[in-house]
């Protein structure tokens, strides 16, 4: 990876206080997933793997003028993207969801293109996220097995 690429990756991951909106917000992701670093990685990997199929479902719905299918596919993609605080994808998917609900697909193709662009950026940001080390904050128990052990011990000491 070149320095320029590395810088770009850092930009799209980190919360930026001054510049434009970032693709994803690492702090918000960790908060949303309750600092469960392993789980964030799993879900990011699943999201990247599922993206092509989910996008093609939206495409097919638009091409086939299936407003109900468009509404559902866009809605569920929006839900998944919101796990990562990916505002641009959420907004683009919401536009398509509305078009499906209102049965007005006149601008659906442009909206699809927009969504595809934003998904590509999100996938890049998630791939970069998977490459860097996410720090687990020490006060949180994020391994369920540790939670179980702690609960059992607590009961025994009571």
């Amino acid at each position, binding site marked *: 990876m070149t320095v320029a690429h590395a810088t770009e990756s850092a930009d799209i991951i980190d919360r930026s206080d001054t510049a434009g909106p970032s693709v994803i917000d690492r702090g918000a992701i960790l908060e949303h997933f309750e600092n469960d670093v392993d*789980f964030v990685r799993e*879900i990011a990997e*699943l999201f990247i793997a599922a993206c092509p199929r989910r996008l093609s479902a939206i495409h097919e*719905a638009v091409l086939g003028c299936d407003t*109900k299918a468009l509404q*559902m596919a866009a809605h569920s993609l929006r839900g998944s993207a919101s796990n990562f605080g990916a505002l641009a994808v959420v907004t683009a998917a919401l536009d398509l969801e509305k078009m499906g609900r209102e049965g007005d697909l006149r601008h659906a193709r442009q909206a699809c293109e927009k969504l595809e662009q934003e998904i590509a950026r999100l996938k890049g940001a998630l791939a970069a996220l998977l490459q860097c080390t996410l720090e687990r904050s020490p006060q949180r128990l994020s391994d*369920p097995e540790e939670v179980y052990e702690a609960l059992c011990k607590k009961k025994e000491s009571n």
Partner: protein
Amino acid sequence: MEPTINLPDILERLEDDHELLQELAQLFLQDLPLRLVEIRDAVASRNARALQQSAHALKGSAGNLAAGAVFEVSKRLEQMGREGDLTHSDEAYALLQIEVARLTVALQTLAAPQSSN
């Protein structure tokens, strides 16, 4: 640590049939609330036999989806039921809830709901 869902494993078993995976995931998510209620009730009423049966059912569905973590906790609950020792069944049920919440997010990430038409 067990993965929430082992995607390569399940896709291999389903011979890369993504449509089938979507269907299985949807069915699992539909049945899940009822299965959890059965386990919760069995734990709350300290009914070892009911716990064994309800945990066994969830274990089977989780196994079909290569959902390792839920499979393992269900197996543990089933064993508690079989041995009639429910000392730590509350804790195991709490663990199950965590793993089920993770699995739900994972399945929703993987599978879009099917259109009815």
